[in-house]
C-alpha cells in the first residue's frame, strides 16, 4: 500500500515504535561514535571538537598501520581459505547428493555450527593446538615427534585456522543457494552439446555462482576483519588485530576519540565492501 491520508494512521501506529527504537538506539549511537572520532583527548578527559588529528595519528603511526595491514592480510587469507573449502562443499551438496532429504540434512549440519557459541568454537582450537593439547599429545604418542611442539598455537596460522573454522558456514550458505538455483536443464543442454563436465563447470556453473562467491566472501571478510576473540585466544605476540587495538583504546589506553575514529574506519570499510558487493552481485546476475 502507498501512504495516503486514509492509510497513514494505521502505518503510524505500526511503524512509530520500530522507527523510534532504531533511530534512537541504533542510528544515533553510530552517529555519536563518528562524532567522538573527531574529539580531542586531554588525558584523562575528552573534549568535543572537530579535527582530524585522530585519523592522522592512525594513518601515520606505524604502530597502527602495521596492525591494520596485518588485519587486512589475515582477513583476506581467511576469505580465500574459506572459499577453497566452502565451494567444493556447496558443489558436493547440490550436485553430488541426489536425495533431497540427505541434502537438506547435510546442509543443516553445515549451517548449525555457525550459530553455536562462537567463543567455544574459537576456544576448542586452544585445546587442540596447545603445547599440552590434543594434536601434540597425539603426535607424541604415535612417535611422530619426540617432545610436544609449541609451533601450533599463538601464531598467525592458528588464527587463520580458527577464523576459517568459525566462518566457513557463512561462505557455504550463499554458495549453496546460488548453486541450487541453477536450472538443471542448462547443465543438460551443455552435456547434449558435447561439453565435458569440467568445461560445463567452468563455463556454466562457475560464472552463474559468482554472486554467491561475492556474497560469501564479503561476509567472511567483514566479520573476520573485526574479530577480537581469536587473536586473544590463539594469536601470539604478533597476532594483534584491529579489534584488539579498539579494545585497548577503550580499556587501558583510555583514548575513546582515537578508538572511535578507528571504529569509524572499520564501519566505512564494511559499508564500502557491502555496497561494492551488492553492485557486483547485480552485475553478475544473469536473468534466465
Amino acid at each position: 500500500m502507498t501512504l495516503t491520508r486514509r492509510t497513514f494512521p494505521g502505518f503510524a501506529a505500526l511503524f512509530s515504535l520500530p522507527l523510534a527504537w532504531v533511530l534512537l538506539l541504533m542510528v544515533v549511537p553510530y552517529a555519536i561514535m563518528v562524532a567522538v572520532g573527531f574529539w580531542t583527548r586531554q588525558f584523562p578527559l575528552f573534549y568535543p571538537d572537530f579535527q582530524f588529528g585522530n585519523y592522522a595519528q592512525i594513518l601515520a603511526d606505524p604502530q597502527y598501520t602495521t596492525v591494520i595491514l596485518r588485519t587486512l592480510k589475515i582477513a583476506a587469507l581467511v576469505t580465500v581459505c574459506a572459499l577453497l573449502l566452502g565451494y567444493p562443499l556447496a558443489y558436493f551438496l547440490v550436485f553430488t547428493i541426489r536425495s533431497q532429504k540427505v541434502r537438506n540434512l547435510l546442509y543443516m549440519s553445515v549451517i548449525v555450527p555457525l550459530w553455536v557459541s562462537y567463543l567455544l568454537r574459537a576456544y576448542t582450537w586452544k585445546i587442540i593446538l596447545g603445547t599440552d593439547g590434543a594434536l601434540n599429545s597425539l603426535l607424541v604418542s604415535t612417535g611422530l615427534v619426540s617432545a610436544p611442539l609449541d609451533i601450533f598455537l599463538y601464531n598467525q596460522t592458528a588464527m587463520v585456522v580458527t577464523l576459517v573454522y568459525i566462518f566457513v558456514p557463512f561462505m557455504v550458505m550463499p554458495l549453496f543457494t546460488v548453486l541450487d538455483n541453477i536450472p538443471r536443464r542448462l547443465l543438460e543442454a551443455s552435456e547434449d552439446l558435447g561439453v565435458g563436465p569440467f568445461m560445463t563447470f567452468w563455463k556454466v556453473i562457475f560464472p552463474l555462482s559468482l554472486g554467491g562467491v561475492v556474497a560469501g566472501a564479503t561476509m567472511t571478510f567483514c566479520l573476520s576483519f573485526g574479530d577480537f576473540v581469536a587473536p586473544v585466544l590463539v594469536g601470539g605476540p604478533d597476532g594483534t588485530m584491529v579489534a584488539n587495538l579498539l579494545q585497548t583504546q577503550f580499556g587501558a589506553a583510555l583514548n575513546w576519540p582515537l578508538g572511535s575514529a578507528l571504529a569509524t574506519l572499520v564501519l566505512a570499510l564494511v559499508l564500502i565492501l557491502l555496497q561494492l558487493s551488492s553492485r557486483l552481485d547485480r552485475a553478475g546476475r544473469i536473468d534466465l
Partner: protein
Amino acid sequence: MLRLRWWQKGMVGVSLGVLTFLYLPIVMLVIFSFNDSKVTSFPLAGFTLHWYEAFLANAQMLRALANSLWVALFATALSVVIGVTAALALDRYDFPGKRLFQNVILLPLSLPGIVTGIAMLNFYKQIGIPQSLTAVVIGHATALLGVVVSQVMARLAKINRRQFEASADLGATPFETFRHVTLPSIRSAVLGSALLCFTLSFDEIPVTYFLTGREVTLPIYIYSTLRRGITPEINAIGTVIVAVSFVLIVLSVTLLRERERS
C-alpha cells in the same frame, strides 16, 4: 549410474574433510569434558563427571549463567515485539526510505560486533546510562532486530494477501485480523527467529563486552577465565552450552524453513 571424474572425486574428498573439520573440534570439547585429567591430551585418562560437579559448585559461574539467561530472555522478547511490528509495517506499506531502514537494521549482522558495541558504549556514556545488564539487554535487542525482521518479512511475503482483504471485508478489526489471520500464518517464523535470537544473545561477546558492568554474562565470564588459562570446567559448561544451542538452533532452522500450508 553416477560416475565421478577425478576432480569431482577431489571435491567429494574436500567436502568430507570440511564436514569433519566442522565437527571434530566440538567432539574434542565433549570428550575432554569427561576426561579425568587436568590437561587436554591423549591418551585419555578415564571417565569422570568431576568437571561437571565443579561447575555446578562454582557460584560465580552459575550466577553468570543466570544473568545470561535473563539477558537473552528479555532481549529476545523486545526484539520479537519490535521486529514483528516493523516487519508488518514494511510488508504492508510503501514509504520513502523503506530500503534504507531495512539496510540499517541488517547492518549489525554484517558489521563486526565490536563496532556496534563501541557505538552503543559511546551513546550510553553521553546520555548517562551506566554499564549494566539492562544496557546489554537493550544492546542485544537492537543488534538482533534484523534477524526477526528479515525472517518474518520473508514469511509474510509468501502469504496470500486475499486472506487479509477477506478478513477485513467480513468486518474484522485490524487487531482481529492480526490475531486470527496473520499471526497463525507467521507463527513458526516468529518462533524460529525468537529461538535464533535467544541463542545469539546468550552467546554474544563483542557488544556485551563493552556494555556490561560488574555483573557479567556467561560468555564474558568464560572469556575472562580463558585469558588466565584453561580449566577443564570450561569444557564441561561448554559441552552443556553446545548441546543446548544445538537443540535450539536445529529447532529454529526447522521452524524457519517450514513452508506455509495454505
